[in-house]
């Protein structure tokens, strides 16, 4: 008489026996698929190198002289912009041009995910060159804008996880491995930003424009030390009043916008050299907002801007941005 436990084990064994052939078949098919993709990628990379290389068979056979290729032509690498859900990837990539305008953006699909990337010449994007480029503000501006523009183009049709600029792979296989190894992380991030975009809200103040609480007294014509000190005191009072006003404005703005947002993040204020205004930045927030609330956000910020303008405070909205502030390398994401 078999015990319940024995019967149970036999049942599982039978099931396993029955399923094994199918599983093996599927695994073989899966493995073949994966190997084929890896081979295809490697072949594409190799072919590109062969076509471009100065000693490529095709060019060497030709009678005409080989056009002077720069000797440092090392082939291409892959500049990755963002990770998106696989099913929408081809449509997202369509029509976008990358950091090198001649190279279109393409989607590389791996499982449920896809990376949007474009080719860049290693002669310009290798270790040394890249480091030099990063010190060149014109290059940096052009490339940063291009990197961001690709994401902006892609985010119109669905969620994306933006990668920091200068994420470069030599081989497509490396991109696929990255997608596989971090599949869970990307899936979590994609879910967190689904149907959302990032918006920036900043508050600026021009201290000269803060209305003085008491009318400014005319400067005495022959000023004494006491007059000078009194002037300094008035100036100090005015500044601390301004501080208080800024704080109130920043708090009110943040309160009003954060209740609409799914997440928010305080960023360090930018210095005047950075934002280029003749005013001081007092608030620099990023909000993750559902697309259905955009109109609400716009009208709220507009209202706040109008209300605070007479006090010399400027409330500014930017966006929609790729959700840079709301993706994370840790599984816990941002609280």
């Amino acid at each position, binding site marked *: 008489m078999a015990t319940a436990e024995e019967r149970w084990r036999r049942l599982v064994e039978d099931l396993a026996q029955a399923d094994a052939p199918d599983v093996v078949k599927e695994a073989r098919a899966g493995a073949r698929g994966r190997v084929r993709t890896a081979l295809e990628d490697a072949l594409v990379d190799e072919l590109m190198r062969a076509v471009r290389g100065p000693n490529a068979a095709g060019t060497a056979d030709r009678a005409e002289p080989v056009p002077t290729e720069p000797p440092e032509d090392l082939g291409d690498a892959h500049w990755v912009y963002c990770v998106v859900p696989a099913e929408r990837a081809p449509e997202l990539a369509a029509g976008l041009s990358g950091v090198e305008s001649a190279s279109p953006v393409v989607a590389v699909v791996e499982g449920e995910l896809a990376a949007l990337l474009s080719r860049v010449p290693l002669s310009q994007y290798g270790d040394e060159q890249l480091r030099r480029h990063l010190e060149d503000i014109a290059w940096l501006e052009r490339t*940063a804008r291009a990197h961001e523009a690709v994401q902006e183009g892609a985010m119109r049709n669905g969620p994306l996880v933006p990668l920091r600029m200068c994420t470069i792979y030599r081989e497509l296989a490396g991109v696929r491995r990255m997608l596989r190894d971090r599949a869970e*992380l990307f899936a979590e991030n994609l879910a967190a930003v689904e149907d959302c975009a990032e918006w920036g809200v900043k508050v600026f103040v021009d201290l000269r*424009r803060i209305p003085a609480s008491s009318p400014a007294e005319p400067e005495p014509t022959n000023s004494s030390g006491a007059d000078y000190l009194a002037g300094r005191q008035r100036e100090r009072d005015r500044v601390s009043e301004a501080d208080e006003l800024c704080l109130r404005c920043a708090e009110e703005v943040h309160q009003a916008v954060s209740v609409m947002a799914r997440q928010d993040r305080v960023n360090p204020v930018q210095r005047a050299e950075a934002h280029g205004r003749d005013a001081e930045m007092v608030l620099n927030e990023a909000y993750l907002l559902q697309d259905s609330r955009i109109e609400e956000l716009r009208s709220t910020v507009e209202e706040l801007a109008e209300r605070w303008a007479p006090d010399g405070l400027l409330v500014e909205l930017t966006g929609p941005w790729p959700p840079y502030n709301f993706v994370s390398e840790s599984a816990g994401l941002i609280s």
Partner: protein
Amino acid sequence: MSSGDLPAGAPGRALEAQRRPLPASSGPSNLADILERVLDKGIVIAGDIQINLLDIELLTIKLRLLVASVDRAREMGINWWEGDASLSSGAKQLEEENRSLRERLDRLEQAAGLPAGNGNREAKEQDGDR
């Protein structure tokens, strides 16, 4: 930059000028806003090109004092990517001190009935040399 320079000493007019339509998502974005994101945020993965993550970190710190655009940088004569001295907090303090000294000088000049601006100009030149 749309904001331009604000006219000093005309608070009434300046306030009026400030009541302009909300610049929400129109026109090219401020470079500072973009760099703040593409260099400092987003998922960071070390790809195959070993652009040292440290290099980018350093750059990011530099960008804390970055300029609004290339034109503006040239206009201001700023080579922030060359001199690291400006990164130290000491430099900021110096700048602050310099400014308050300049203000004081202006006041003293005024009090002494000297033609205003001489000392200020000199201070600015020195500032530029730094």
